[in-house]
């Protein structure tokens, strides 16, 4: 029989969940509700007047081919950021896990970049790749490659992806490293006795056992790429050249806070919310099936 704890009355359970409910209500439901409400209006910036337009803001956005193109940009960007932050992290975690001595030092060093705020990380990378004073840009020019992310779409995208993924590698590394530690040694040793070499053991035993962690990180990293990378983009490219690095969340920021167009900005937040919601549902429905807990 399952053992269940039951509470008498409602007060205690309500009091216990209240903090979480209040925090979610104040910091999530209320602003999200506001965004949905505001997306139906074209307000003036000062809040003096506001015109009800129904779904007009959405119509305006979806009929804009540059906004639609920004979906593709976002998809490319988030896929690349997720891959570039998870694969190296997994690789580093596997290597660090094999170390017998000094793994603490490597671990500490590898976690450092996570402490750097995205906007600051953006500036750091920009300095290295600055077309005029950047160290990396200079070395590339010595090799005969003319680096110019100010005009070249691909280079600009590459740079914001690397700058966004860099700090994230640390975060992913931590999770992978912890997960690796919990892989039972006995299973690996058994496989080793059977003659499976390292990479075979890794792909057939370790990786499947890591899948819950990898799945969790996949969801978290996609959300990160969608929402938290605008600092990097703001400092490095400002969405350019042309619109090569204008991802959805950056457009929310620039239309709302630079353009003072709160109606369109709210509508974009709502669209973004739906997109991320859908993505998470898809991930849970299809990817999670392949995850072994």
């Amino acid at each position, binding site marked *: 029989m399952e053992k269940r704890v039951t509470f008498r009355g409602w007060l205690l359970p309500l009091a216990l969940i209240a903090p979480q409910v209040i925090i979610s209500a104040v910091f999530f439901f209320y602003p999200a509700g506001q965004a949905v409400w505001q997306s139906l209006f074209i307000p*003036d910036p000062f809040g003096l007047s506001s015109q009800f337009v129904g779904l007009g803001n959405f119509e305006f956005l979806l009929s804009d081919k540059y906004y639609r193109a920004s979906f593709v940009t976002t998809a490319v960007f988030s896929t690349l950021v997720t891959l570039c932050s998870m694969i190296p992290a997994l690789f580093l975690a596997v290597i660090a896990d094999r170390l017998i001595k000094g793994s603490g030092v490597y671990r500490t060093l590898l976690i450092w970049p996570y402490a750097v705020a995205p906007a600051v990380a953006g500036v750091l990378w920009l300095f290295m790749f600055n077309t*005029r004073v950047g160290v990396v840009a200079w070395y590339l020019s010595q090799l005969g490659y003319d680096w110019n992310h100010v005009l070249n779409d691909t280079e600009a995208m590459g740079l914001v992806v690397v700058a966004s993924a860099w700090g994230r590698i640390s975060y992913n590394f931590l999770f992978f490293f912890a997960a690796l530690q919990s892989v039972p040694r006995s299973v690996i040793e058994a496989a080793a006795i059977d003659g499976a070499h390292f990479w075979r053991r890794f792909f057939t035993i370790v990786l499947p056992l890591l899948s819950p962690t990898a799945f969790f990180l996949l969801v978290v990293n996609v959300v990160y790429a969608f929402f938290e990378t605008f600092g990097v983009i703001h400092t490095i490219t400002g969405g350019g*050249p042309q619109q090569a690095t204008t991802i959805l969340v950056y457009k929310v920021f620039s239309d709302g*806070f*630079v*353009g*003072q167009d709160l109606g369109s900005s709210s509508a974009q937040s709502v669209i973004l919310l739906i997109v991320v919601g859908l993505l998470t549902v898809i991930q849970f429905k299809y990817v999670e099936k392949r995850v072994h807990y």
Partner: protein
Amino acid sequence: MKKNFLGALAVTTALSPVAAMAQTEVQFWHAFTGRLGELVKAQVEEFNASQDEYVVVESHKGNYSETLNAGIAAFRAGEQPQILMVFEVGTATMMSAEGAIRPVYEVMAESGASFDPDAYIGAVKGYYTTTDGDMLSLPFNSSTPVLWVNRDAFEAAGVDPDTDLSTWEKVGDVLEQLKAGGEDCPLVTAWQSWIHLENMSAYHDVPFASQDNGFAGLDTELMLNGPAQVAHLTAMGDWAKDGKFIYTGRRNEGGANFRSGECALFTESSAGYAGIKAEAEFDFDVRPLPYWEAVTSEPQNTIIGGASLWVMEGHDPEEYKGVGEFLSFLSSSDVQSAWHQNTGYLPITAEAGDATRAAGFYDENPGTDIAVIQMTAKEPTANSKGLRLGSFDQIRGIIDEELEAVWAGEKTAQEAMDSAKERGDALLRRFESANQ
């Protein structure tokens, strides 16, 4: 920023008991840091020391966009300052905000402070004045684009540094010579939309937008895809392709390239003076912005960039009196000539310009009067009074994107400007419907 804020807080706290007794406090939010921030602080201190009825409290609120945002957010919360600095691009936004702003001419009339609208330079005040001639905000820092020349780079490339650079046709030839002489960066620019489209249009007396560049109504459409603008951008695009014009970014990134001596020519604001003078380790001089001889035989005036001071609604009459006194103080000849000489910004009154000339500043610093001459040589026309377009910050973003397509050789100038017009007009229609 934090320090400033704490400083302001300390000042406010320290003065509040006094203020409650006799002095009226006036909040002034601005966007200046560094040297400019110090100069603003000095102006405020001088005003506060000059009388004992009012205390102006200055606070720095971030860059131009952030300051405007802070003002808007504060207004929504009922905490707005009396005076808010807004960059020229935000002019239409502020103008349409009836009920949030109090026009300067009204404030001045009610406060009884001395105010003569005719004292201000036409091309400067025009930007902030209605078509009926009423001044809505007080011009504070205004600059205009000029051509900066690295004389050493000219000599290194074997080109006479005194050569005539008055027209783009001549500049085109010089760029060719510079390139042939081994110069890797013949021309670089800052603020491409402001200089190569907005000013280019005014300077050649062609419209940038319909309805007198937006002054006559919100139902304005962009006209930046006209033949004059397209011809200029086509030439620039060709120069970019040949490596004669180097694109460095949307803002003033090019300044670093010029100040380090890497580039020979630089189109940039006259307010670049302080930075170039401080950093350049080469001989430089200033020339008027070139014009196309094929378009006009004599250029019109250029237009300004910078910011003006807006007075916000919702305060006591006594406070507005203080605002009036402070704005009047800022417009005084002494304050203006000092500001002009220290920063390279234009003087906002003709008198301040004359005082600067009389003091011999222009003789000691040759070229510093070029911006003033360029602005005031001709009476502004409907095309050269300035621009008043809603959502203009975003429209500039669109123009930047389209220009990048031209510099990268992905679009012709005509295609890019047609597209900029289409996209910009959509935003103008939105602004129109939000402000009806």
